[in-house]
């Protein structure tokens, strides 16, 4: 009884009925078509369940015997994360100035934005593979990868912060004839400093997390230890590593959250 004035119906999500049902139909066709072409081989799956069983059986109980390797891997991850954060921030500050619309001229702005977009587009694992090929296995490739990863995040958010600054201070500096560099240092930097410190701490935390992954493709750190354990079917050691990674990430998240709260 939809014509009855006393009954109320929920307004439709998309007003135009043709468009609404058109979108629903298109979505349904897409889902059915892609699902239908999925090559699910149920024999392989039931076979795989046995393999998963074997992995889990091998993984329990986790084996902490080689804790020396574990600690070394983590220290290396930590060093990679620290160096990459410092390097990434050092590069991010000039890039952020380049990519801020209110500070830089058009061509420089587009160059800065372009670099940031490229740095953000590639998953760290892909970047790591390229760097491993270019500079060899080990922590150096990992640090370079995370520098790129840090630029993509820190420079982007910092540029957005610069675009939001109070421009009165810049104008004041310019009106007394200050140079470009001193304007940046005295009028812009103090305004973006809290955000920069916050981003740096957040990025250290997220670099530590990412360094566990890029190690899988040979870029050093705990990820390399994990990949080796997996490759040697040492599933109990691999589980121990994974558990410690999860623990360390939870701790570092808590620590960085605490520091950021104190600073902000």
């Amino acid at each position: 009884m939809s014509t009855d004035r006393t009954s109320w119906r929920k307004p439709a999500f998309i007003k135009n009925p043709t468009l609404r049902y058109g979108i629903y139909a298109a979505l349904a066709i897409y889902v059915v078509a892609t699902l239908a072409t999925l090559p699910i081989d149920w024999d392989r799956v039931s076979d795989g369940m046995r393999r998963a069983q074997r992995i889990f059986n091998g993984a329990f109980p986790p084996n902490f015997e080689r804790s020396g390797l574990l600690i070394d891997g983590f220290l290396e991850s930590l060093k990679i994360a620290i160096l990459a954060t410092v390097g990434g921030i050092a590069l991010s500050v000039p890039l952020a100035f380049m990519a801020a619309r209110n500070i830089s001229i058009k061509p420089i702005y587009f160059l800065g934005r372009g670099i940031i977009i490229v740095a953000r587009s590639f998953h760290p694992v892909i970047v790591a593979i390229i760097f491993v090929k270019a500079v060899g296995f080990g922590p150096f490739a990992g640090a370079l990868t995370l520098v790129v990863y840090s630029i993509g995040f820190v420079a982007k958010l910092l540029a957005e912060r610069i675009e939001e600054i109070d421009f009165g201070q810049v104008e004041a500096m310019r009106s007394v004839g200050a140079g470009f560099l001193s304007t940046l240092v005295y009028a812009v930097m103090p305004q973006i400093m809290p955000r920069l410190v916050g981003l740096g701490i957040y990025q250290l935390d997220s670099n530590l997390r990412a360094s566990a992954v890029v190690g899988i493709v040979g870029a050093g750190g705990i990820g390399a230890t994990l990949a080796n354990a997996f490759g040697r079917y040492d599933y109990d050691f691999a589980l121990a590593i994974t558990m410690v990674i999860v623990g360390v990430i939870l701790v570092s998240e808590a620590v960085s959250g605490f520091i950021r709260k104190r600073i902000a």
Partner: protein
Amino acid sequence: MMDSQPLQQTLDHWSRFTLRQRLMRYGGLMFTLLIVAWALSSIDVIWEWVWDAPTQMGDLFGRMMPPDPSNLPSILEAIWQTVNIATLATMFAVVVSLPVAYISAQNTTPNRVTLWIGRFILVSSRSVNTIIWALLFVAIFGPGIVAGIVAIMFRSIGFLGKLLGEAIEEIDHKPVEALEACGASRFKIVLYAIVPQVMPAFFAISILRWDINLRESTVLGLVGAGGIGMILQGAIDTFNWPEVSMVLLTILALVVFGEVVSSYMRKKIL
């Protein structure tokens, strides 16, 4: 002068920070420098490789130029596969994360036990990386797109459930009370008092995760879980650098496309 400080002192000398603040700042700086020095001096890096890194990278870049489009049809097919992995996995994850979000939000969860079950699902999903999920599911389903979809889905549930649960915790509770007062059933309360309030957040979060998943699914192929990563891995293993750069260009285009689509949808829906 509102300050309790003697007037003479403030006129004589202005400083931005108090002595204590300055000490804290220098202390922080020193601490950072020490940490960096420790990391630099003890890291296991072969410095010869560092010094000739620019040459090596220039060499690699030179080999990548110009990109080789001869394999473009199969690259595009793999890109389409990547989009499908991201989209299907996001859809499934959204469906699964709805009840998880419902039980992990403090104001809607039936009791403490379900709250902790919800929290446990969210934390375990988020703390294992997509690649590690993929390694596991490749062992179960065999190499291919199915393992990729399930891996991305497992990872997304934690993200979607956490953010959605937070959105549910922030709702205005009056509509819920109004419906309760009218004697509405539990299901009707969720449908008419909670769903409309979290709808915008729900779409924003799902679109954001889809965008992230596009990037994540580009690397699944490296562990055999389907998508463009398979072709990338193959090209790198055969030192086919022009094809590598072609794949990288396509990924760049895909990610930019994803960002355009998601910002358009966000504007359209919200």
